[in-house]
């Protein structure tokens, strides 16, 4: 596929003789949002962690921007990929401002530019900087923390965003709001997004394409329209569960 930013080429990941994922062949085009859908244990998180080299494939390879993750310097690769996880992992000892500004700081941006960038990002995720910049993570609600997590992932303007059930722990009302805002935001910024979820409704809200994983295998991949229409029984069953 032309313009594929991320390519899984027969990628397999296993530990101790047990295959957790693959062989998986899948491409993510520049600027699209691909949702990895599947029950827990399907290998979604494993697939995601192969992209930013938190895991390396045992067989086959994963390419990012045309280069295998084995050849990338993992630190450089990860600085260009925003990563949002369900537990968020905000640094509890740093203010919201310092959390969001961390990657720019590691990248050696001047302090003033970091401050401006943090303000811009907090506005972008709907947290007025005047109110939130100086707060500590424990002074935020779950939804607010998740917004900070998204802002932090976007801080150094990475072309790719990896999200691992980022809204899983947020209450349903805040969750829907976050999904809609997140979808609009990433589309506007032109980010390439790989989004992991087990929630069909969330997948259909956010995805341009959906990849369904079951027990480490890709069982369906197609546009969200195809996903909604396919007679494939494995997909149909999920649609009914919704």
């Amino acid at each position, binding site marked *: 596929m032309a313009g594929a930013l991320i390519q899984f080429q027969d990628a397999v990941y296993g530990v101790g003789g047990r295959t957790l994922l693959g062989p998986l062949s899948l491409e993510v085009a520049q600027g699209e949002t691909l949702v990895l859908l599947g029950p827990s244990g399907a290998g979604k998180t494993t697939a995601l962690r192969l992209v*930013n080299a*938190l895991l390396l494939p045992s067989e086959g390879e994963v390419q990012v921007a045309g280069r295998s993750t084995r050849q990338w310097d*993992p*630190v*450089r*690769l*990860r*600085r*260009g*990929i*925003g*990563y949002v*996880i369900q*537990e*968020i*992992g*905000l*640094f*509890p*000892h740093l203010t919201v401002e*310092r959390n969001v500004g*961390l*990657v720019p700081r*590691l990248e050696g941006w001047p302090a003033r530019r970091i401050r401006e960038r943090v303000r811009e990002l907090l506005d972008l995720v709907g947290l007025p900087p005047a109110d939130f910049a100086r707060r*500590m993570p*424990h002074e935020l609600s779950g939804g607010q923390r998740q917004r900070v997590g998204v802002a*932090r*992932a976007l801080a150094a303007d990475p072309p790719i965003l*990896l999200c691992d059930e980022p809204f899983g722990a947020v209450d349903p009302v805040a969750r829907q709001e976050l999904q809609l805002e997140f979808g609009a935001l990433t589309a506007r910024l032109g980010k390439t997004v790989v989004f992991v979820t087990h929630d069909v409704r969330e997948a259909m809200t956010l995805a341009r394409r959906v990849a369904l994983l079951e027990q480490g295998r890709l069982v369906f991949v197609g546009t969200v329209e195809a996903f909604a229409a396919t007679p494939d029984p494995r997909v149909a069953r999920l649609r009914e569960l919704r």
Partner: protein
Amino acid sequence: MSFWAYLAANRAEVLQHTWEHVWMVALSSGCAVAIGVPAGILLTRRPAWRAWVLGFANVVQTIPSLALFGFLIPLPFIGGIGARTAIVALVLYGLLPIIRNTFSGITSVDPAVREAARGMGMTDAQILWIVELRLAAPVILAGVRIAVVLGVGIGTIAAAIGGGGLGEFIFRGVAMVNHAVILAGAVPAALLALLADGALHLLERRLDWRRGGAP
């Protein structure tokens, strides 16, 4: 002679031995931190060594202090009669709480925080300095506090092998069966322990991110 009268009459000597004591504990605690913190960090990277290293430190802790001083005297370079041997013994005693607290402080960092740090492209060194040590700081400092207070107490035995310090008065007082002389060593030692404990406790609280203290 009463305690106060003895103290007043021997002001200079009390001050001198107090100073020796402070110096002995400060130096040994500094060495224990310099060895114990890196050792604790190393253990988090090599969990297989944990049982051996903590086991060694545990065994050292169980050796009665007077016996440990005695064992060290015949050793070349580190042994002999005097303050040096006492300092080596105090370092050995201080290691266990510092290694143990460094290890448990770092391993108790939320795995999600570590995952996020790795995922955002922090190097191992950055994760250690910016995240792990910073979050573990209050726990590590609590270990240092235990080591220092322990050192002030055990340091009084240094006098038995010519190491000086406030133990001089205690041993002298015991030999003379004179409470005033014992107290001239015991009271300043107790005050030192309280002072060190209080100061380190304050520092510990300042470093505690849960209180939103330091940056």
